[in-house]
């Protein structure tokens, strides 16, 4: 089903058309647990043709740059605006994936996004699930779009 390709295309599209930011995808990271050094994340569950959890994970400076570009203002700390902006991006990326999978007759439904933020946290992955992590680069650094999924 080419998860990685769909994630790259969807993320590029959302950033180009909704946030007016150029992003470039790097090679997907290898499967497994890895500390991404991130300080703000948003996650959203998906169900239907497969069950999944999609996340966007950003180091602080990258999260501030992305939400600043999206909201059209300077943002200096990870506040409610930043969390909302990332939640909205998670929602849009999940929505874009839903459309791409719908074109292949794979139906998906979205839950609601939640923000995770803090000085240090890690997101674990179950050994029983598949995981794709794609790094994307912007001028300020890298962020990651992660999708964990189980084919039903």
């Amino acid at each position, binding site marked *: 089903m080419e998860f990685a390709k769909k994630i790259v295309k969807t993320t590029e599209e959302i950033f180009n058309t909704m946030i007016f930011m150029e992003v470039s995808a790097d090679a997907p990271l290898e499967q497994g*647990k890895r500390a991404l050094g991130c300080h703000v994340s*948003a*996650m*959203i*569950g*998906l*169900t*239907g043709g497969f*069950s*999944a*959890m999609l*996340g966007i994970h950003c180091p602080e400076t990258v999260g501030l740059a992305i939400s600043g570009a999206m909201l059209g203002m300077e943002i200096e700390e990870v506040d*409610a605006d930043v*969390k*909302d902006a990332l*939640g909205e991006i998670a929602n849009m990326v999940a929505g874009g994936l839903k459309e791409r999978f719908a074109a292949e007759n794979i139906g998906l*439904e*979205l*839950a*609601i*996004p*939640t*923000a*995770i*933020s*803090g*000085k*240090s*946290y*890690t*997101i*674990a*992955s*179950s*050994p*029983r*699930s598949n995981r794709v992590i794609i790094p994307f680069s912007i001028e300020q650094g890298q962020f990651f779009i992660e999708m*964990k*999924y*189980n084919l039903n």
Partner: protein
Amino acid sequence: MKYAQDIAAATQEIFSSMVMLDVTPGEPFKRADSKLVNSISGIIGLTGSTKGMLAIHLPDNVALAITTAFLGMDVDEIDEDVCDAVGELANMLGGSIKATLDPEGSKVQLSMPSAIHGEEYAVDCLADAELVTVPFAFNGQTFMVELQISKAN
């Protein structure tokens, strides 16, 4: 508060049947702007006729005690097994809540669970959602189970 009783019933059921622990629910509240310290959280999404997110927040020592009881083996650090057990706990709690929200079993689906572990982090509700948190106690330890239900349904 709506859903508080469902959370209490689901959590008591799962803990007594799967973890063999009797847990006592406390007063429900709306958790806001609070950081979780040295904790692990399991989250799982709900979609369908009820959209939302269910979370269980456990201090590290409580997560170790529960995982030890759940897996029937001693664990003394937050490793993959503990993260996996907490995700699985979220999954079982989600299943139990789903049975209440959707007795016919066809209108609400559960996403994949995820576990978050850290020294200091926040888990915030973003959507226009109803949020209710229920604290639980056992053997002098406490943890929280939280449900966000979108108002846009």
